């Protein structure tokens, strides 16, 4: 009986932790190369802004210093694009090559299709906003 209670408590905690971890969705990067290489990265979006806290400060400051001219634009874009959860933004086709940028279900989707590689990125818009705010804070402290 005690074991069952412990198991239930553990499961409940796991569900709660899982719910929090995945509540912002998943950042997905899938790369399929013609030479057989495959890279698949699935990261809970809620973790990414947290991870920025543990990146060594000097590295983050160096990166944000380089990106500083574009940070206001990135921040504005991340904030504004959330208002358009379903939109086809850019599509470029040239023979076998295709780049498609769109939003769907509150996520930014970027598909790059080339003869020797396919790259697909799915990025929750909420995460983009969180990251842009983190970077802006970091840049203001440079």
């Amino acid at each position, binding site marked *: *009986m005690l074991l069952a*209670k412990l198991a*239930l*408590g553990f*499961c*409940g905690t796991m*569900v*709660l932790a*899982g*719910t929090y971890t*995945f*509540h912002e*969705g*998943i950042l*997905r990067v*899938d790369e399929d190369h013609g030479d057989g290489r495959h890279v698949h990265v699935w990261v809970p979006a809620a973790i990414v802004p947290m991870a920025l806290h543990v990146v060594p400060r000097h590295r983050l400051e160096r990166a944000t210093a380089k990106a500083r*001219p574009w940070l*206001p*634009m990135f*921040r*504005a*874009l991340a*904030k*504004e*694009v959330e*208002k*358009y*959860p*379903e*939109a*086809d*933004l*850019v*599509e*470029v*086709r*040239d*023979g076998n090559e295709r780049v*498609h940028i*769109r939003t*769907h*279900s*509150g*996520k930014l*989707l970027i*598909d790059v*299709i080339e003869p020797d590689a*396919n790259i*697909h990125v*799915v990025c929750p818009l909420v995460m983009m906003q969180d990251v842009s705010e983190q970077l802006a804070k970091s840049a203001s402290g440079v």
Partner: protein
Amino acid sequence: MIPHTRLSVENAGVVLASAVLITLGCANLIPTFAAQASLGPGASGQVAASSSSHDRWLHVRVTNPNSSEESVRVNVPLELAEKILPTINQHRLHSGKVSFDEADCHGVDIRALLDAVRTSKDGEFVTVQNKDSDVRVAKRNGYLLVHVFEKNHPKKSQVEVKVPMKVVDALFSAGKDELDLVAGLRALSIQGDTELVSVKDEENSVRVWVDSKNGSD
């Protein structure tokens, strides 16, 4: 009996709490996974008409009449462009305005020209014809129309620009030698559906227009 009852109540409480947690968890996770699964890496973008009818979108299409495999499609909400442009300060673009100098205008006093256009009556008022091209500039029904037809150009290009005069006025509302792009976009957003630019030649066809649709034509 009493300890047994207490145990049952405790168990029921634990089970109930777990069920609530699991339900909450699933309610939160299922839409996320369903959305991820429904996308598929190369799934084509299904554009739902979720945006408000008041949203105005700027569309750009570049197509090749000879090949269906070459195309560029850009759809930008005017409001998004209005918010983002002032944040870009690079080269000639600053605070939503773009600067230009006399060299860009080939010695033409653009403001004087526009004043002349504004005060003139509707109809054709500038036509330049030579062996290479015909250029027509006109004001009609509150629009500035520019039509360029290059006769001897190897690609026989034909350019048509149609901009509401209110947008032109907004563009030139900034200081001297500056175009206020944000003011122009704001003026454009209160106009009706408008085809702004059409360029056609033997290789490409370019269209720029504004409407309230958030996706492809």
